[in-house]
């Protein structure tokens, strides 16, 4: 589902979706393992504030003899031995060594607050580079820019191997054409009489309070939060999870709500993709061509395109005052309109009369663009289709309409869903600390049920490229889990990133 799996700091909405799916795929209640929200360190830890320069410096420890720099003092000490300088390796730290946490030097950053400090030096360095640094690593293939070289390398490996898929079934290997298509595709853009903003509003107000009551543990957002295992059991999690309520931390409250919307919308979104795929197969093309045909007949002269035989031309040439039958010669224009036959599969899957309606989403500058695109698909689905049962029906039809090998799976899903009582809050979190969402997003399969095939409900994920992504299955399971799991999970992910940066890097 996440279009931009390559980037560890992709939209948190996507991240959270995968994790929620992860939780619920094994349809049994797993004891919850709690993890800390990144940036919720041990209050006893020593807070370290490094300057931007120090954070960006790659070789802070410099040899006074040869000016060679080292990332770690230990390494410099070893190096000094070569110069026959006095050197001293630190002792192995005691078990009782004081925990250190690091804050971001950027004053406006949420991680500038000691209460949101990050647990390790690498994490804060990467955070600082990604969010506040110059993006100097540029992908040759797609021009995407990265601030951290390792991000860039990871992206470069998979750039161009993935495809974007629209609800209408069209595949895109290029992000920009996908975006353009998305803006124009009926699968997204239909908006007319049956405006149902109320539905969205309701969804919101339902899911939001549930956010705060659910205690499904937060998945660690991928990038800057390799949550230190030492910080595990935080029982006051739910209260602290929502520092959003704290006005001192700008940007959080709306984001949480946004993410909630996103994810709740995901639940319904299965319907959106299928509506389109089913409708695009039949009526659309025929009607398009019918109209083409109609217009060509209207213009008259459905003769052979070669109709203006040379004799007519000759006659006309020799008698210019009596121009040849222009209607006839121009008939090639209209006739050729009939040539449209074998282009059955329209790129827009248009034409369906029972379009979904989309309520206008509020401006959400904090999401990544791709996430926003997804949301668009999801919105409409939510509007017309709140019940997960209906969504399931659509799952089946989607499977049958093209992804055959997913059919059995979705049926299995139906069964497992029956076993689950919605709202199944906090269905467990098999995501062990440390594995991190980045791995999940990258499709590391180990933690997933290996039999599980992925199903691209949104039509936004990768249709090719080989990595079964957790995000996809997450969508499916979020149907069973109901609004709450997904929404709650979303909120965790949502709390972490500055949306702008996310978008920029995605």
């Amino acid at each position: 589902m996440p279009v931009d799996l390559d980037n560890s700091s992709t939209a948190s909405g996507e991240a959270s979706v995968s994790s929620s799916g992860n939780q619920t795929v094994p349809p049994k209640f797993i004891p919850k393992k709690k993890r800390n929200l990144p940036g919720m360190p041990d209050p006893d830890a020593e807070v370290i504030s490094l300057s931007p320069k120090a954070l960006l410096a790659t070789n802070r420890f410099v040899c006074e003899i040869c000016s060679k720099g080292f990332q770690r003092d230990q390494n410099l000490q070893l190096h000094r031995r070569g110069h026959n300088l006095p050197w001293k390796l630190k002792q192995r730290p005691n078990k009782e060594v004081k925990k250190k946490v690091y804050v971001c030097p950027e004053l406006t950053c949420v991680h500038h607050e000691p209460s949101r400090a990050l647990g390790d030096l690498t994490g804060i360095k990467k955070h600082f580079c990604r969010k506040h640094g110059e993006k100097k690593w540029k992908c040759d293939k797609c021009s995407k820019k990265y601030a951290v070289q390792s991000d860039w390398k990871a992206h470069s490996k998979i750039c161009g191997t993935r495809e974007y898929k629209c609800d209408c079934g069209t595949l895109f290997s290029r992000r920009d054409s996908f975006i353009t298509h998305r803006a124009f595709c009926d699968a997204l853009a239909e908006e007319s009489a049956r405006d149902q903003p109320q539905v969205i509003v309701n969804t919101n107000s339902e899911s939001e309070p549930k956010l705060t009551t659910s205690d499904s543990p937060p998945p660690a957002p991928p990038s800057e939060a390799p949550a230190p295992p030492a910080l595990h059991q935080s029982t006051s999690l739910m209260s602290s999870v929502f520092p959003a309520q704290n006005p001192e931390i700008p940007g959080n409250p709306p984001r949480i709500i946004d993410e909630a919307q996103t994810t709740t919308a995901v639940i319904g979104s299965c319907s959106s993709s299928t509506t389109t795929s089913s409708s695009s197969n039949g009526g659309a093309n025929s009607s398009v061509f019918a109209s083409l045909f109609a217009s060509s007949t209207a213009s008259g002269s459905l003769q052979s395109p070669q109709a203006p035989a040379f004799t007519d031309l000759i006659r006309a040439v020799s008698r210019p005052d009596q121009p040849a039958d222009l209607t006839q010669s121009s008939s090639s224009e209209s006739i050729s309109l009939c040539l449209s036959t074998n282009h059955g599969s329209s790129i827009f899957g248009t034409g369906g009369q029972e379009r979904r309606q989309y309520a206008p989403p509020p401006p959400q500058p904090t999401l990544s663009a791709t996430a926003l695109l997804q949301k668009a698909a999801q919105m409409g689905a939510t509007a017309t289709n709140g019940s997960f049962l209906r969504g399931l029906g659509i799952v089946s039809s989607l499977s049958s309409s093209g992804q055959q090998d997913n059919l059995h799976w979705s049926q299995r899903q139906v069964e497992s869903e029956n076993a689950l009582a919605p709202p199944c809050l906090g269905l467990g979190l098999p995501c062990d600390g440390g594995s991190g969402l980045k791995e999940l997003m990258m499709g590391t399969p180990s933690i997933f049920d290996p039999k599980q095939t992925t199903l691209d409900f949104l039509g936004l994920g990768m249709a090719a490229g080989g990595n079964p992504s957790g995000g996809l299955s997450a969508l499916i399971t979020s149907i069973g889990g109901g609004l709450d799991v997904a929404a709650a999970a979303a909120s965790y992910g949502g709390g972490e990133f500055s949306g702008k940066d996310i978008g920029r890097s995605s």
Partner: protein
Amino acid sequence: MDTTLYTNYNTSTAKDNQTHSNIYKQSSNGEAAAIVTDMQSSTNSHQPPSQNNHTHTSTSLSCSTSDPGDQPPGTGKWASKLLKECARAISERDSSKIHHLLWMLNELASPYGDCDQKLASYFLQALFCKATESGQRCYKTLISVAEKSHSFDSARKLILKFQEVSPWTTFGHVASNGVILEALEGETKLHIIDISNTLCTQWPTLLEALATRNDETPHLKLTVVLTNTSIVGSVMKEVGQRMEKFARLMGVPFEFNVIRGINRLCELSKEGLGVQEDEAIAVNCIGAMRRVEVEERDAVIRMFQSLRPRIVTVVEEEADVSSTRNDFVNSFEECLRFYTIYFDMLEESFPPTSNERLMLERECSRSILRILACDGDHHEENNTSIESSGECERRERGSQWAERLKEGFATVGFSDDVVDDVKALLKRYRTGWSLVLPPPQQGGDNYHHHHDQYSSGIYLTWKEDPVVWASAWKP
């Protein structure tokens, strides 16, 4: 090669009830030689009949080679030769030659054939109308047919499909968007005045870029200017809805306006466009300047100046049917050169039976007719009918546009970032496309150190031929 084809003509004449000339291409008939040599007195192209008449589709593109002897057997460009001959005959008012050539072309041409046949078909139409002074009438018929089949769905499908398979339009979009974003960086109220004919397909990626910008998401006002004759006018309502929807989605505060009822672009004004003092203005002009009457182009540029824009982007197709507009043969040859490249590009970009390709070619046929066959009766019919019948795409070359624009603006170089974006774009299309930067103004050695910028626009080339020119300007 030529011999063969001309000969084929003759054969089909003998069996004159036949309309599908392809059937006869393989045969040869000695009788025809007389006609061939008559018309081709300057050439010595009596080559053995070609074995593969069906393959003269896509290879040699260098239209400057007018001598068929230069071309490998079997790949000769018979359409180009015949058409040029015919244009010359028309200009010389040699009616018997016109007669013969139109007759032959009609036999060979087909809008469903290969590139040569398609070119022959559409240029024949123009030549025929020119010869019979019936261009206006024919053009109106074509336009009304096109309007009847024009819908939002078809237009959208066409334009997006084209963008998917060819960078012809996306090149200008990426270059312009890059420059606009850079020029308006940090501004909070943007106003883009869009004078183009691409159904706003340029803007989703810009909206996305704005939404993910590092600084505060700015307010964007998009004002689309439609001239009266623009065929896209009827679908702007749908386009506008989608733009507004998409902007909401992206979280970009957005206002969408359409300016209609403009007969001449130079009539536009700050007031008419709703330009506010606190807005940062960008004028985006893609394929629009060539539709302006040649005499009015400088006035349009002055109008741009009066808007006090931060940036003006101009993207045009690289051909000159402007300076030669009073010289029919030259215009014809340049027009033919340009569309030969274009048709070749279409052929290689689309699958053979693509309906979109056919629609694009039909657009070309109207444009060709308008350029070549509608000026003759310009003075005979009243002016209003001409204006209402559509804009004539009198293209100019990038260097010519640059000369005009330099009167009011200074060139803005494309930054390395934008150039990289364009290169990345081209990589994703099939081979044959490349980006050409103009030679540096101040000598080759130090230009790399100079500004990291490229002056006077950049070119998209298709198989070495520059085809689209993109440029950026500031007051």
